[in-house]
């Protein structure tokens, strides 16, 4: 009896005893301090007609509405030289200076290529403005080149008759074949004052690959038709407009919908499509472009309102000279009349593999009203057109005659 009285309370004690003895815990303290900093990359409104941009209070988010249109549109970035320039410059022997002026002779945003040199019989020199363009994926009814230019020059010594011309080239960036070229005589004689003229010509749209990448080049050339006993000259070529205007068969948009700039550091950036909703039929390609080095990412692709590719490749993003932007976000879209899309994107940038930042972007694509005209916002600075490694084939183009 006594042993039972002792055993009964001991049984539950024996059951719990191991658990009490085994419940050992170790605690390692960790402190985390967060000192937040200003965003090293911020968004900017590109000021493109037909693109309405609303930025967050710290420019790390954006809501954009793009109006697709059947109006002819320009596929050359900053074709009016207003704002930051994606144009690149290839100097000649004497034509070695290239800048963009806020205004000149009543025109806002004017590129100036100039130089001076010694003349001799057979003298020729040329310099180029160029940029990489993307042919629209949508069917194009027709395409025209527009060049508004003027030239000031003088033979400062000796006697020479000079021929000054401008040739527009479109060169396939992959095959390096000249797809189109148009030459315009700017002036011939002994001296001239600058008078603005618009030169235009049609392109052979059947020769272009939808979505293809091309170089758009403007060659300014000085040739001596006759020089007696040598001499010297100067020449200044002014360009107010250099574009390719294409007429789409369906409502479409091709251009920059958002800009980003890095204030410090080097990053790898990409775009991701997180979610999308569609009304009707929408085709779209979205990609990143670093225009200072003429490099672009692979595209986010939407075909017939279905997401084919939801992630772009990465681009290196760095700080750039004043007046330029580190990153351009491009859209090429064609929609059936009345269609629309809402795309939820994320710009993601990282430093190596350690830290990633994500900014949300909402992109809305809607059917017309029609896009507006050129932006009249005057530029604030005179800035120099960048000169970097020229595209291949440039020496051939110096002497090319169509």
């Amino acid at each position, binding site marked *: 009896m006594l042993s039972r009285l002792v055993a009964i309370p001991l049984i539950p004690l024996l059951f719990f005893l191991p658990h009490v003895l085994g*419940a050992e815990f*170790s605690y*390692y303290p960790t402190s*985390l301090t967060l000192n937040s*900093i200003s965003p*090293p990359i911020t968004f900017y409104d590109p000021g493109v007609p037909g693109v309405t941009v609303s930025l967050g209070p710290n420019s790390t988010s954006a809501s954009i509405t793009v109006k697709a249109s059947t109006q002819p549109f320009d596929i050359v970035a900053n074709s009016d030289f207003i704002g930051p320039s994606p144009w690149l410059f290839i100097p000649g022997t004497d034509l070695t200076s290239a800048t963009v002026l806020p205004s000149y002779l009543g025109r806002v945003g004017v590129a100036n290529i100039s130089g001076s040199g010694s003349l001799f019989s057979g003298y020729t020199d040329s310099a180029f403005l160029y940029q990489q363009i993307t042919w629209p994926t949508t069917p194009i009814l027709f395409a025209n080149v527009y060049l508004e230019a003027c030239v000031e020059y003088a033979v400062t010594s000796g006697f020479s008759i000079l021929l000054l011309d401008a040739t527009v080239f479109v060169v396939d960036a992959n095959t390096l074949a000249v797809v189109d070229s148009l030459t315009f005589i700017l002036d011939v004689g002994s001296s001239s004052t600058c008078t603005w003229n618009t030169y235009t010509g049609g392109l052979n749209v059947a020769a272009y690959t939808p979505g293809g990448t091309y170089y758009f080049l403007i060659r300014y050339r000085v040739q001596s038709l006759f020089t007696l006993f040598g001499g010297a000259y100067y020449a200044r070529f002014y360009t107010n407009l250099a574009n390719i205007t294409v007429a789409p068969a369906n409502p479409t948009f091709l251009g920059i919908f958002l800009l980003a700039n890095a204030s410090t550091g080097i990053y790898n950036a990409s775009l991701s499509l997180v979610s999308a909703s569609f009304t009707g039929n929408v085709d779209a390609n979205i990609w990143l472009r670093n225009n200072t080095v003429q490099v672009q990412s692979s595209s986010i692709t939407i075909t017939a309102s279905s997401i084919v590719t939801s992630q772009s490749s990465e681009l290196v993003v760095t700080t750039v000279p004043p007046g330029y932007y580190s990153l351009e976000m491009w859209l090429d879209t064609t929609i059936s009349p009345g269609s629309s899309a809402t795309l939820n994107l994320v710009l993601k940038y990282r430093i*190596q593999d*350690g830290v990633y930042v994500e900014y949300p972007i909402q992109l809305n694509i809607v059917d017309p009203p029609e896009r507006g005209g050129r932006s009249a916002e005057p530029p604030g600075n005179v800035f120099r057109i960048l000169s970097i490694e020229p595209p291949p084939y440039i020496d051939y183009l110096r002497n090319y005659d169509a």
Partner: protein
Amino acid sequence: MRTSRAIILLALLTLLALVGTAVFVYLPVNVTINSVSPPVIFQLGSNAGGTDLAGNIIQVTLGPNASSATLVLHPTYQKTYYHDVLQVSNPSPPAGDNYYIGIKVVSPLTGAGFSSAVARVYDSANNLLFTADLTTAGTYGWATLLPDGQTFRIDIEIVITEGVPLPSGSVTFELVYSPQSVTPPP
């Protein structure tokens, strides 16, 4: 006479009762403490000491015996994600010892403007094991098995909503581990 005797008797009984309740029994117990090297340790993540935003450094410092850690990070607006900044390891030797871990948030994140802050724990196969909310006190992920010889990584994700002044703040949490999983940590 009888009354005084009664009073004396009553006083004696009262005293006896008080003395009788103050009884103590002392059972001797010998406790021997043999401390051991920590079987679970912190390690620097692969990105500790790497470049943070705006030229800063991802600062991660371990205590002298890898049983404490201090981190300083520099996030910005929207979502900032820090990958593999800290690791938790159960090295082998000694072999065969498994431990259960969790994260206990002791002092949640201070600093207005942080809309969320989490620590994510992943195994070596990049599987998400659990997430600890650094803005709310509590124990998270208990009891996640950290097998012998395995190492888990810890990522930190911070979200700062636009429109507020850039915040600064701190959070204190503990890695808690035990050889058993039945009893939750106090």
